[in-house]
């Protein structure tokens, strides 16, 4: 294993917010033998070739745990210099502020995280749209290497009550619709981040993860 840290390691950042097994197993499935390491060690994150930043649960807890484990600096550095994939709350945390718990986030991207608006959560038929937005929804793509081999409009698995509103439209790499249109994928340079769960999105989700593993931004 010595020396393997600079030879293709994929670090999945663990800050204690739930199960990362699905993410790491899905990555292993497509990584072609590259090591996948679930870690809360900033040194391992710094040495990795690429970094996956998942997240689940409530945003204030995620931010608190990230700081409690001394991982903020490692995340910020990885987001500056290597292929970086944010998932779910790991996408939301890249922005400036979240309405969930009214907390500041990492501020890598301009914009905020907001909740599905209660007054729009109904279909014309009168049927109520439930929150969390849970299940498989269609994603409209903006061209990006991570969509390679995935049909525009393909469905991915979502489970969330909040979503990002980027202040810069150039960040938007995918959109979805649930009561309101919303951004579900963002990217810039070496960073790509999604609101849905590629690790739970069957074949298309695995394809996106494979694209990330092979991505050279």
């Amino acid at each position, binding site marked *: 294993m010595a020396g393997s840290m600079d030879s293709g390691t994929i670090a999945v950042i663990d800050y204690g917010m739930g199960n990362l097994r699905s993410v790491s197993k899905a990555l292993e499935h497509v990584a072609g033998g590259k090591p996948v390491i679930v870690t809360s060690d900033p040194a391992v994150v710094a040495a990795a070739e690429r970094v996956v930043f998942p997240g689940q649960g409530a945003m204030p807890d995620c931010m608190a745990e990230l700081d409690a484990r001394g991982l903020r600096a490692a995340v910020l550095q990885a987001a500056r210099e290597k292929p970086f994939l944010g998932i779910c709350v790991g996408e939301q945390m890249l922005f400036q502020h979240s309405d969930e718990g009214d907390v500041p986030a990492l501020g890598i991207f301009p914009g905020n995280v907001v909740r599905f608006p209660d007054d729009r959560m109904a279909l014309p038929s009168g049927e109520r749209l439930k929150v*969390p937005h849970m299940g*498989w929804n269609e994603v409209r793509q903006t061209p990006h290497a991570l969509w390679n081999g995935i049909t525009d409009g393909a469905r991915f698995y979502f*489970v969330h009550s909040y979503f990002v509103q980027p202040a810069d439209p150039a960040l938007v790499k995918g959109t979805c619709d649930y009561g309101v249109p919303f951004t579900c994928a963002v990217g810039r340079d070496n960073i790509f981040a999604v609101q849905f769960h590629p690790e739970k999105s069957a074949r298309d989700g695995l394809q996106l993860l494979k694209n990330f593993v092979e991505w050279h931004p």
Partner: protein
Amino acid sequence: MLAKRIIPCLDVTAGRVVKGTNFVDLRDAGDPIEIARRYDEQGADEVTFLDITASSDQRDIILHIVEACAEQVFIPLTVGGGVRKVEDVRRLLNAGADKVSMNTAAVQNPDLVFDASSKVGSQCIVVAIDAKQVAQGRWHVFTHGGRNDTGLDAIEWAKRVESLGAGEILLTSMDRDGTKNGFDLALTRGVSDAVGIPVIASGGVGNLQHLADGVSEGRADAVLAASIFHFGEYTVRQAKEYMAARGIEVRL
């Protein structure tokens, strides 16, 4: 548009999938991982494992099944049965479950719903409600496989668990479960219209029309079935094609 979900349910005991009627006459339906993988290939939107193990010394078997499943099946996995403490929830999530379902323990200790959802997030917490009709338009929550009437009104209980932090409700009609006569649509619609979280309809599916009715008339966000899929009567894909032909949004 968000697709309505079709969820095959696997009753698991001693490491095998079984299916019976009213908890008797269990028939062996196979290896849980193999079956989950087959459903994934057919386009299932999620898979639910229900651990119906009676003895506590076999409880850990389900953890190994969940672990193995998470390595091979890349769709959401819900696990229920025997969940009594936040620690049980954590262990199942750490093994690879995406959601954990609680039933009797939530009735006996509603704080469990609040504590668990506070710790791991509402999106991971499913409350299973077993309901039985007690009068026209009225259903009570039952526990212990339908033997024990808690006296709780099913619709009021659904609203309560939503306020405690449940992220989803798995609603089973005890009157219909195992009958193949279709969902209790009045119950399903009553609960689904009363809460702002997704509702999974369960109990009574005997054909594809029943699944479609659960969504269009019952207004369920997802439909769950076991035996019609296990014994090869229908594939999940056939169910989806049937629903799509009736104008229901599904993932094909």
